[in-house]
């Protein structure tokens, strides 16, 4: 509209209603309010305490050489020179194997459950199975895994042993680890898919697209952040699990020498240790008798988990994080605002 008069000046006298006073609340509300305060503060204090304690202890004992040196082999005693390079590598290896199995499987099962769910009796059964899996203690999974992978025909997954199969290797541990990450990936993917508006599916069906095409090219890309968050949460579980490592990766502090001629596979068939088993072994409860190194390793472990958590927060927030930006650069050649 042309020629409109200048808009009137905002009023100068503005009345803002005063904020509600807590003292005006009924006693029950005030008591509950106080309880909330106390428990909130207590939780923050405990979390802060743990992190600060590990930080102080860890930094005090952490030396760069610990990160670059292998543990002493052939000796129970870990107090002499030696670091935890191998456990770090072990953690990365197990996490990689577990994630590579759990992520595609979890996404696929979640897609089937939400987009197909047929036959319905199988979908219901899978639903219960996943719930049960999420509730099984990892030590139980580990024990089952050991028996399962000790069978002769699965011996190719670990180094040969006199009794046919050792049942212990990065592959065996990673496979069982994938079971504890799977429910997390699945739940995140499922929630993401269920939160999508139905009209997104309709739009694709109305163009003559199959369920498979719709899922692959419309729905799953739309929930990339949810999937990524689920995968990272799963990685966090894997990084932190001790029971499965203790049972299925064996006790060798160092990575074993690769066997066979396939480069990566040889290493994965071997045994080794991870940060969790290293911390356990060297803690006051273990036999390694190197508490300082346990603290240092625990600190590194804590950093890893905190970094993964930060990554989840970053992914699930709206702002594209580093990963999102890296993706854009790969995809479009430039990061956009």
């Amino acid at each position, binding site marked *: 509209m042309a020629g409109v008069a200048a808009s009137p000046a905002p009023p100068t006298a503005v009345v803002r209603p005063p904020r509600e006073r807590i003292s005006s609340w009924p006693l029950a509300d005030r008591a509950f309010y106080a309880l909330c305060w106390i428990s909130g503060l207590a939780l923050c204090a405990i979390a802060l305490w743990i992190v600060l304690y590990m930080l102080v202890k860890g930094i005090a004992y952490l030396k760069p050489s610990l990160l670059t040196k292998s543990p002493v082999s052939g000796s129970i005693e870990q107090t002499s020179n030696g670091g935890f390079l191998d456990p770090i590598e072990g953690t990365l290896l197990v996490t990689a194997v577990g994630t590579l199995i759990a992520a595609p499987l979890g996404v696929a099962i979640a897609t089937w459950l939400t987009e197909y769910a047929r036959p319905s009796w199988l979908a219901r059964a899978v639903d219960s199975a996943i719930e049960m899996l999420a509730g099984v203690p990892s030590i139980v999974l580990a024990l089952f895994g050991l028996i399962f992978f000790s069978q002769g025909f699965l011996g190719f997954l670990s180094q040969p042993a006199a009794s046919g199969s050792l049942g212990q290797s990065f592959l065996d541990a990673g496979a069982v680890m994938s079971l504890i990450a799977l429910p997390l990936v699945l739940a995140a993917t499922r929630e993401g898919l269920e939160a999508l508006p139905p009209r*997104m599916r309709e739009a694709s069906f109305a163009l003559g697209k199959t369920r498979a095409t719709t899922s692959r090219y419309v729905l799953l890309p739309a929930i990339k952040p949810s999937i990524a968050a689920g995968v990272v949460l799963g990685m966090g579980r894997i990084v932190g699990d001790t029971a499965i490592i203790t049972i299925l990766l064996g006790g060798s502090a160092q990575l074993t020498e690769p066997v066979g001629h396939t480069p990566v596979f040889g290493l994965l068939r071997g045994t080794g240790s991870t940060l969790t088993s290293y911390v356990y072994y060297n803690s006051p409860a273990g036999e390694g008798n190197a508490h300082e190194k346990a603290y240092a390793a625990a600190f590194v472990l804590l950093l890893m988990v905190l970094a993964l958590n930060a990554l989840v927060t970053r992914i699930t927030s709206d702002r594209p994080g580093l990963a999102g930006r890296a993706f854009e650069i790969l995809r479009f050649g430039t990061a956009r605002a």
Partner: protein
Amino acid sequence: MDPLMPPPIRRIALDAEPTVATPREAPHVNGNGGASPGVAARPVRPPAATVRDRMLVEGVWLAYGESWVVRDVSLPVRQGEVLALIGASGSGKTTLLRSLNRLTEITAGAARAGRIALDGVDIHELEVNALRRRVSMVFQQPNPFPMSIYDNVAYSLAEQSPERGKRRRRRSPELSAAVEDALRRAGLWDEVSGDLDRSALRLSGGQQQRLCIARALAAEPEVLLLDEPCSALDPISTATIEELVIGLRESVAVVIVTHNLQQAFRVADHVAFMHLGELVEYGPSEQVFDRPREQRTRDYVSGAFG
């Protein structure tokens, strides 16, 4: 009719204009005739060069669960014409529209009776995805996919080619040309050609809806179904889309569901008025608006209810 009722939508024109062939003005509702920009007069347009039946709806009943929402409807859908389905909420127009490409089937508990044919073949004998590529649909709420403008249209084009193994995101010159063509047909090209990589969700509502039309057109459908495509849009976007719809009728059979009588009047060649699941009246839009045969139609187009 109750003498206190507001004058029928076409009364003035009806009095002034005895013959059907005379070019007409927009329905008189706002008191400003066809003067306001969003409510342009219906253009004088010659009939399409060829008008032929594409779909035939014969004695169709549709139900969700136990209640029949469409009762014994029969009508033709013709290429070269725009067919408008009008009627109050709950009259079954949208359900009828969705049954034309079997989208009703994705709702659990949907039941049907009767026959719907596309070029003489019962649509329930066609493979459902093949049918939906031929009979495409645009929805009430613009629903672009959360991807770039380019990919929205390219997605619809993919799988048309016989080589399915091909990576679909690759921007071959042929694909880009087809994307441009679809965007041009939907009248969106000039506005978005500068940045096809922009997220489709950043477009305005009217642009999003035209993108959805482009997406539907990219698959080269034979019938285009529009479910109240303008109800979420402003008058300017609405006018753009109406022009677009009229322009499309030569190449595709268009069916549009609308609550807006003026819109039906502006774009439709034939109008079907539905009430409580029944097809009350079907005929050329001049006839339905000017000389409705049924009292219920007369009441509806005059604004007595609905």
